[in-house]
């Protein structure tokens, strides 16, 4: 349906109230003039006066003067009435043209800054806080634009301060996590080396007894450090996805192969489904969620993975019956470096979320403390 803007509504109101009023006034005026004119046409004196007998020359002259006066007056009034009606319509026409032009100019001068403000507000909404309006126009508009510019400048300052604060906070968090995560493997390494040193000083002959174990500890902790570096590296460099048509059931079966020897995993996979997903990203997403499910569950309790089609989507659910997630933590589990586990960087689920977004996939979590968690991926399925 046709929607009228503010300017159109104001203009229609102006036409109805102002110009409509003038037209009505003019019509009344014209009608009254017409009545006077008609009455004037009816007035006739000369013919009756001519029929009268004038007894003296003086009477005749008086009658002549009277007739001339009357006829001239009638002609003058008639012309004056016509002139007045013509002029009133011309004046009305000029008033309409001039007032409408002035009204349109004023309205445009008023609405243009409002449009500029609207566009500027839109830009701010989109994140461009550096937008500034030229402080021109009528004083009230200049004041409004000046206030707007001041507001945008303040927003810009606040945003840059927030960015700095956020960066600082991220660095602090990162430093804390890195220090903690690096310290964890360093302590066993240091202890293993200390044990070796002490044995070498106290009983060099029996160093061999603890050498293999110490090397194993050191090697294991170095491997942990490598994995830690790998996690950070993976999160930092999520590449642009390279989507390809994959069979999710097949991919899940391949991923699960390395886990089934040690853990109970129950698969319910609908075959024949195909999705558009970066294969490497899909592997990382499923592995991370599955690893979390394994970490949260007892080894004997099965983890359920199901895949099915719902409308035009492929739904992948990974469900564990572990300890579950606290309600207050549920909103934060995808934040980087957030973790309630004793080991890990807190980057796993953040990476999952990032990869899902990169592949236009929605991820949802249902969890109840003590009952377990379910991660659901909603992926657009290809037409079969």
């Amino acid at each position: 349906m046709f929607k009228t803007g503010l300017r159109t509504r104001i203009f229609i109101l102006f036409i109805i109230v102002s110009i409509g009023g003038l037209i009505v006034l003019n019509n009344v005026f014209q009608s009254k003039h017409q009545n006077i004119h008609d009455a004037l046409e009816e007035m006739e004196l000369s013919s009756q006066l001519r029929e009268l007998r004038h007894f003296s020359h003086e009477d005749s002259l008086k009658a002549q003067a009277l007739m001339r006066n009357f006829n001239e007056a009638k002609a003058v009034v008639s012309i004056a009435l016509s002139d007045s009606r013509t002029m009133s319509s011309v004046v009305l026409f000029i008033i309409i043209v001039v007032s409408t032009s002035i009204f349109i100019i004023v309205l445009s001068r008023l609405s243009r800054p409002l449009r500029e403000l609207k566009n500027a507000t839109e830009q701010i909404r989109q994140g461009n806080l550096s937008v500034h309006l030229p402080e021109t126009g009528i004083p009230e508009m200049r004041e409004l634009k000046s206030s707007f510019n001041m507001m945008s400048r303040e927003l810009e300052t606040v945003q840059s301060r927030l960015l700095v604060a956020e960066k600082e906070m991220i660095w602090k968090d990162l430093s804390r996590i890195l220090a903690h995560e690096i310290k964890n493997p360093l302590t066993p390494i240091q202890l293993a080396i200390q044990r070796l040193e002490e044995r070498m000083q106290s009983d060099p002959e029996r160093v061999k007894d603890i050498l293999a174990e110490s090397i194993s500890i050191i090697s294991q902790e170095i491997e942990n450090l490598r994995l830690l570096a790998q996690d950070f590296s993976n999160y930092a460099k999520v590449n642009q996805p390279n989507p390809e048509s994959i069979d999710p059931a097949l991919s899940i079966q391949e991923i699960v192969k390395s886990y089934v020897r040690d853990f109970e995993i129950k698969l319910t996979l609908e075959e024949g489904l195909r999705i558009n997903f970066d294969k490497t990203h899909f592997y990382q997403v499923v592995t991370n969620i599955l690893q979390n499910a394994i970490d949260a569950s007892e080894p004997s309790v099965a983890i359920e993975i199901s895949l099915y089609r719902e409308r035009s989507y492929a739904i992948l659910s990974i469900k564990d019956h572990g300890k579950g997630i606290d309600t207050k933590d549920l909103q934060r589990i995808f934040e980087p470096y957030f973790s309630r586990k004793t080991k890990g960087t807190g980057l796993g689920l953040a990476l999952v979320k990032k990869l899902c977004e990169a592949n236009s996939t929605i991820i949802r979590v249902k969890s109840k403390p003590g009952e377990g968690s379910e991660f659901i991926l909603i992926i657009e399925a290809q037409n079969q």
Partner: protein
Amino acid sequence: MFEVLGTKILAGVVSLSMLLFSSFKGNDPLISSISTAKTGSYLYLKANLENAFENDFPSIFASGSKIPVHYDLVVHQGSRTVASHRITNTVKFDPTTGIYELKQGNKSPVFTESPEEVKRTLAAFEYSLAYQSAWNKINVKLEAHLPKVHFQQLNKELDLMVLWKYKKPSVKTLIDIRKVF
């Protein structure tokens, strides 16, 4: 040039305004095409003013003041003006006798009681133009207008053009004198 342009704009504005906002009819005068005839070394020109003297005019004619109607005749050969004449028809009413005195150009006055005769006579334009044999083709422009009239009894001067909505009727025609018989 600006005067002509101004008059045309004024006439346009008045006509449009009256069409939109006035119940006043006024008159919409126009001149019919000029007819020609040759008599010796004179070119006889004749035209008629139509729709010119209806509304309001009967009471103006009956005022007793002398009411003139001017016809301006301008003859061009190429871009050169070769002749320019003003011919005036007049009417004057005598309220005591009820008789109109009519004068058409330089002709002798005629008298009538008929308002219709008055309209016909004032609307008729006739003129014998002395032409030169070298003219051949000429452009003739005829324009009619009403002057301001002074009403003596009331000592008032009024512009009668308001009754024509400030529109000066005119006609232009190209005449090949060699083809006029």
